């Protein structure tokens, strides 16, 4: 939905904007009208004001988190696609790899965070590893499903032209898998930001998750909301960007 909102000022986009405006208005009215304490729900205007006054701190933290998310995202996508390619090119590997991958993936990636923090420290590296893990599984499984979706008869047609595995991979399997692959990459954008922030909350030297954690300790809930707002903005922008790229590439669907 949000991808459509960003792309074109269509009817859907207008509705989306209207929905957002109504939500903000209701929120503001509720918080002000009932005079809710900030640990229940601060007013949107207070949050925005706090974002502005803390802009230096938030920008720096956002940059920190964004770097972790992007680096992990890039590495994760590469690993996911590469694994899917290997499994497709070497069918015997599949029966070894797939159960392992499924077993690792059956635990939420956050479950591994204590180990990852232990192994990679509480700096940037552990966040990149966590994000890469989360992204690579999603991209791997979708890409593999995309490769498997290829039409058997189309493979036969290329074989009859004398094409080997690599020619079939590049001319047929990869383009066939692209729609699923790109969907997984779009969904993973939001996941990468979430995982970066959650891991930061478990131990970090900076970033939006670290700010949220510190703000909770200082009982500064407006600050918590400020960081959440900034994180949402980053997620939505990232999501919209990949969504736009996706639509450009997949002109035929």
């Amino acid at each position, binding site marked *: 939905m949000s991808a459509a909102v960003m792309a074109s000022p269509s009817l859907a986009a207008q509705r989306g904007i209207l929905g957002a405006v109504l939500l903000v208005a209701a929120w503001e009215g509720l918080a002000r009208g009932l005079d809710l304490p900030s640990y229940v729900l601060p007013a949107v205007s207070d949050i925005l004001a706090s974002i502005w006054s803390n802009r230096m701190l938030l920008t720096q933290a956002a940059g920190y988190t964004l770097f972790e998310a992007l680096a992990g995202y890039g590495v994760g996508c590469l690993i996911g696609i590469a694994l899917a390619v290997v499994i497709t090119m070497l069918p015997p590997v599949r029966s070894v790899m797939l159960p392992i991958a499924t077993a690792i993936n059956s635990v939420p990636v956050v479950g591994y965070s204590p180990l990852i923090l232990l192994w990679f420290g509480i700096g940037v590296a552990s966040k990149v590893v966590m994000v890469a893990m989360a992204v690579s599984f999603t991209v791997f499984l979708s890409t593999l499903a995309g490769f498997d979706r290829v*039409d058997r*008869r*189309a493979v*036969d*047609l*290329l*074989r*009859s*032209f*004398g*094409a080997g595995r690599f*020619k079939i991979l590049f*001319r*047929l399997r990869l*383009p066939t898998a692209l729609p699923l692959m790109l969907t997984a990459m779009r969904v993973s954008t939001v996941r990468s930001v979430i995982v970066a922030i959650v891991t930061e909350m478990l131990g970090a030297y900076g970033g939006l998750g670290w700010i949220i954690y510190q703000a909770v300790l200082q009982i500064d809930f407006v600050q918590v909301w400020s960081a959440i707002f900034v994180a949402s903005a980053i997620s939505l922008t990232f999501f919209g960007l990949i969504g736009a790229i996706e639509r450009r590439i997949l*002109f*035929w*669907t």
Partner: protein
Amino acid sequence: MQAGLQTKETGPVGSLEDAAEPLLELRAVTKTFGEVTALARLDATIARGEFVTVVGPSGCGKSTLFNIVAGLEEPDTGGVLRFEGRSCHAADLLGQVSFMPQRDLLLPWRNVVDNAILALEVEGVPRQQARAQALRMLPEFGLAGFENQYPHQLSGGMRQRVALMRTFLFERGLMLLDEPFGALDALTRAMMQRWLLDVWQKYRRTILFITHDVDEAIFLGDRVLVMTARPGSVKLEQVVDLPRPRRPEIVTAPEFIRLKRILLEAIEEESIKSFQSATVREQTS
């Protein structure tokens, strides 16, 4: 089972080539899939430049025959497969035969020209050169001006012509066409048949053409092979001695009707057999 009367007949009318050595020869070719015998000791020969059509009841192993000749499927040991006078494995035929499957199988992310040059690209022909070659061929395939269109923008008949062009551009001694016009409406199909004959006569390719339409088999072919019910082999080999070029109204000529009667009778017999065996199987299971 193989009732094929081997008529070493004159090649196609107007053919100047020596048809003494067949381009493709199948002797006692058998193919089983587990319990099912798809082909049983099938014999067939195809001469250079010949247009051979294959008809038979559904499930008679036509597609298995095609997959073997296309090199996609290896027959059981014991049979003989000879191509261009040399004994070979089916796998040796990969890349040697231009194969067109039932569905057009155009790649949706490639435009008309790039779909047409797919086989050339796989062969290693530089893209620019292949594209130039395809562009020259476009008018003949009724696709002039459509080079930059994508498959979803084309009609069924046009998509089929793109697929045919892809097959023609892959210049090999033998072309295999598997019910290429099966999905088209009757009018488009008739036009495509006449057009295919024109192109065939111009390029002088050898064609093996599967169809389930007897009219189509007679109208196009120099020879019609009727296949038996499963396990498939050649039941009847009928030479079509109609003059070329063939006009659309030839389908009403007495000779055409006579051939049609012979073929329909043979197919009818086999259809009943395959229907009965299917019913028996249902009852026993």
